[in-house]
């Protein structure tokens, strides 16, 4: 068995928009011919602006949506949910963490039930064991057993994102898709969650597909980087290649637009302002 956890070959996803009385039906090409592969324990970052197809790709990778064309391999097994359906053991291998921790937890469900539900649906584990596992997982993500019976509204944004990560890890997945997991969080909380993700990756040999538009976060966490623009992968390479020598003009625009927080660029800006005044 090779070490490749996820491989995508020429993934295409089109959405057909039905026509109305006055509008014609049309096709939106959300993802165009995207290929990549990720090895065990590594992180692939997908970068792009809103509407570039990165979340569509995330839905395909987490087996929620079927691609229109192209092949998807998870742990060297071909997955084709449109025609062959989805074997239950595959569902366990891939999990997702969503962007907004305020929207992705059911407000009427206690944290213990949030964590136990994936096990209840996917396994025939007895309730006592589900409870034990949920308790262990709470501690792994930096929360305590006292949080088991609380409701989501009693937690802060960073704590909720920890809960969402814990829920995703309950089934021991090998691949975790993180759709902008820290963009709704404050800087200091963002640092805590990124540290947690790094720790969990080491402990469970997890593979991450990390979707983000924040290049400083990507530079910190990624091994490989793919830049998407209007559904196409315009740049794909190791982190150092992409950051030191961006090829595509969009990648360069993206780098130029990222605010720089070092002392030299502040000096340069203040000097420019002085000459302009």
């Amino acid at each position, binding site marked *: 068995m090779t070490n490749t956890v996820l491989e995508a070959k020429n993934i295409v996803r089109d959405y057909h928009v039905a026509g109305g009385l006055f509008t014609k039906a049309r096709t939106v090409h959300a993802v165009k011919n995207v290929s990549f592969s990720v090895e065990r324990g590594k992180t692939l970052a997908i970068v792009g602006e809103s509407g570039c197809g990165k979340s569509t790709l995330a839905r395909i990778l987490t087996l929620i949506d079927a691609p229109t064309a192209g092949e998807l391999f998870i742990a060297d097994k071909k997955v084709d949910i449109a025609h062959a359906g989805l074997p239950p053991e595959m569902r366990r291998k891939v999990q997702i963490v969503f962007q907004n921790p305020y929207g992705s937890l059911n407000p009427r469900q206690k944290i213990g039930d949030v964590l136990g539900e994936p096990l209840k649906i996917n396994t025939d584990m007895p309730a006592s064991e589900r409870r034990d596992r949920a308790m262990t997982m709470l501690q792994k993500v930096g929360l305590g057993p006292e949080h088991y019976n609380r409701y989501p509204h009693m937690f802060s944004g960073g704590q909720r994102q920890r809960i969402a990560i814990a829920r995703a890890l309950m089934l021991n997945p090998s691949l975790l898709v993180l759709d902008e997991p820290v963009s709704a969080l404050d800087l*200091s*909380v963002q*640092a805590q969650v990124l*540290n947690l993700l790094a720790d969990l990756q080491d402990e469970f040999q997890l593979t991450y597909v990390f979707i983000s538009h924040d290049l*400083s976060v990507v*530079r910190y966490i990624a091994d490989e980087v793919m830049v998407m623009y209007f559904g196409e992968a315009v740049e794909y390479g190791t982190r150092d290649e992409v950051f030191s020598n961006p090829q595509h003009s969009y990648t360069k625009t993206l780098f130029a637009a*990222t*605010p720089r*927080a070092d002392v030299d660029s502040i*000096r340069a800006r203040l000097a420019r302002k002085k000459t302009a005044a």
Partner: protein
Amino acid sequence: MPLLEIKNLRVAFDTSVGEFIAVQGIDLSVDEREVLAIVGESGSGKSVSMLAVMGLLPDTATVTADSMTFNGRDLLTMTVEQRRKIIGRDIAMIFQEPIASLNPCFTVGFQIEEVLRVHMGMDRAQRRARAIELLQQVGIPEPEQRLSTFPHQMSGGQCQRVMIAIAIACNPKLLIADEPTTALDVTIQKQILDLLMRLQAEHGMGLIMITHNMGVVAETADRVVVQYKGRKMEEADVLSLFESPKSNYTKALLSALPDNATGDRLPTVSDFILDAPDGAPA
């Protein structure tokens, strides 16, 4: 004389479990033509203190201060009618969520012209001409056609431009921008920040930039106030803040930037402030 000067501001909310103090002991001042950034994480009271200036807090809030003056006029003793003449005209505010802060039921043109009607008393033709001019200033193409579009027909970046157009409609002396780019992509963020800085320089406005993004601070501010749990931690000009931060909290914020990561782990606030203070500066 500073444009806006606040001394010892305290804002408390009445709740069912007693009084909650959101902001305490805040002093700040902005001069004409100055860009002041207020930095802090959620719950640090950075928006609350500006809403207190605007008089937009709910009835449950109690605002007290030693003094709060705008352009030499006392905002605390002013009647509601007097204040309404200033708010929206001399002090304007831009909010975080552009799509949520525009009214979905009215066209963009109506919403811009409303400000001009209330504050400037312009007639219909003047209002329309001014609205077109404003849309041009904020960089929206085909402004004549755009006047009759609704907010949902525009992108987030364009809605934010319309918000800015409404805010600068009466040539305000002070513009308060509450996280103006948080909901936007980096490329759009850059455009909006450039636009705000250009307008600020052209009109000579004072600008208060509320943000939690240190990158935005570095790109825009002259002076920075750092807030944490409702208290002011540090005030410095932008260069010395980034070069030699004084308070532990600022140091923590700067080192939590992934850009500055040196080892495998990002330092967090708790590495710097061991017993996270309940309001007291560390």
